[in-house]
């Protein structure tokens, strides 16, 4: 599914989190929103997911206006910065949550849900942890469970807020490749937020550099590195 962000702005009271920004994401692209703290990355991601509504502007999915769609109607697989796993449910129930929440007419039956959860656990290479609770997992395992939970709803796109933020360098590297693999396998349009430029450059097809609520540059990693459009991008990338 392709995503078009058309002159989106967001104000929180008097402060502006996003000046009007425009961005086109072709279907199946893996996009990084890159920028320093407070640049509006999370805000933009939450607007895409329907968790926040823009002050002005439109969001288009496959050319259709999606600005008014509720968070449930967006069907975006969202991975939160702190993972936000349901602490009182097992890993299995966490992953099954989205399927069990469907209206009866389109809800898979119990065995079908179990089959899909098992498949997702295999996909994230943690086949044996279905019975555990989130507190019994390492940070990297939690992150992968959060990803599996988001994938379970057969989302139209994948949105990840600093998916590797809380992990150590080695685990980060592994999971980066894991995300790339899952993206390539599912072909989902994927947007992830990061303030780590290596991560953005290594992983993404398209990098969006943001600063103070504005988009500074949109381009392939190579373009950003070799032809920075503004002084900010030059400084940020060489840092």
């Amino acid at each position, binding site marked *: 599914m392709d995503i078009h962000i058309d002159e989106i702005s967001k104000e929180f009271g008097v402060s502006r989190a996003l000046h009007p920004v425009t961005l086109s994401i072709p279907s199946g692209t893996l996009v990084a929103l890159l920028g320093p703290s407070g640049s509006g990355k999370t805000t933009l991601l939450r607007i895409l997911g329907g*968790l926040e509504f823009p002050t002005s502007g439109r969001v288009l999915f496959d050319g259709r206006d999606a600005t008014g769609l509720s968070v*449930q109607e967006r*069907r975006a697989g*969202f991975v939160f910065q702190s993972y936000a*796993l*349901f*602490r009182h449910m097992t890993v299995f129930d966490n992953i099954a949550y989205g399927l069990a*929440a469907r209206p009866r007419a389109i809800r898979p039956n119990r065995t079908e849900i179990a089959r899909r959860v098992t498949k997702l656990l295999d996909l994230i290479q943690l086949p044996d942890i279905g019975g555990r609770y989130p*507190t019994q997992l390492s940070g990297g395992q939690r992150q992968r469970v959060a990803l599996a*939970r988001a994938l379970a709803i057969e989302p139209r796109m994948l949105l990840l807020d600093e998916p590797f933020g809380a992990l150590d360098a080695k685990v980060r590297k592994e999971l980066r490749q894991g995300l790339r693999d899952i993206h390539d396998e599912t072909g989902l349009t994927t947007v992830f937020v990061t303030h780590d430029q290596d991560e953005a450059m290594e992983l993404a097809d398209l990098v969006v550099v943001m600063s103070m609520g504005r988009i500074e540059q949109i381009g392939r990693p190579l373009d950003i590195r070799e032809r920075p459009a503004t002084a900010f991008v030059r400084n940020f990338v060489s840092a």
Partner: protein
Amino acid sequence: MSDASLHRPGAARSARPASYRKPTEETPAARTALILLTVSGLAILVFAPLIVVFTEALADGWAAAIESLGNRDAQSAIRLTLTITAIAMPLNAVFGIAAAWLITKFDFRGKAFLITLIDLPFSVSPVVAGLCIVLLFGANSLIGGWLVAHDLPIVFAIPGIVLATVFVTFPFVARELIPVMTEQGRAEEEAALTLGASGWRVFHTVTLPNIRWALLYGTLLCTARAMGEFGAVAVVSGKIRGQTATMPITIEMLYNEYLSVAAFSMAALLTGFALLTLLLKTALELRHADALAANHRH
């Protein structure tokens, strides 16, 4: 070396070397003093009255105590108190959840004011609260006149007692829930929404399970307090024997009539109810220690 042992060299010699003691641990002398203070405080303020209540109740033996609880007015008081509690408890659980939900999951103007308002029943004297209810709903007021005319009296009737009790016990549930819900934040609810769950589903599959322990505590505290409420109920109930006299009101009336055994028997029963709630809370805590810990960690 801590201050206490510096001042008393004798104690320092007999004590274990300072390096063997945890930094947060007190000297033996200080510990003994603290224990003595706590135990004597508890003895004077809690145990002594408890013992007095039960010995006075049983002054003429078990038979007399039980008989005094068996008469019609006593039975009516017990039934009334249990009924009022059974109505006030779920009402305040619902109000408490609604208030805590509003305060922790939404941003709006006047939030600080609302929090103060929730605490108001803790700071306002129950008697004043009772008087306000009488002024608002009494036969001489506009609303009260209409209600009485339509045969729906509030003051000097059960609705008034419920209202007074709900008011006095209102903060318990909300106060328990607000810190827990603040700490947990909104992320899990948001995650559930992105997974397609409706607002109601999010509430009963994510929010409610996460707050169930705090909710239980708040409700039990609220129950214990509701059964014992005197001041506000004394004003609105009119103290009609056999009709609007609750257990605490009955205790006071019996005591004023020098019916000591009857008064203390009823008091002992009321104390028993309160102890039962505490016992229930402790039992649940012991039984679900793991779940409790899991809820607090993370």
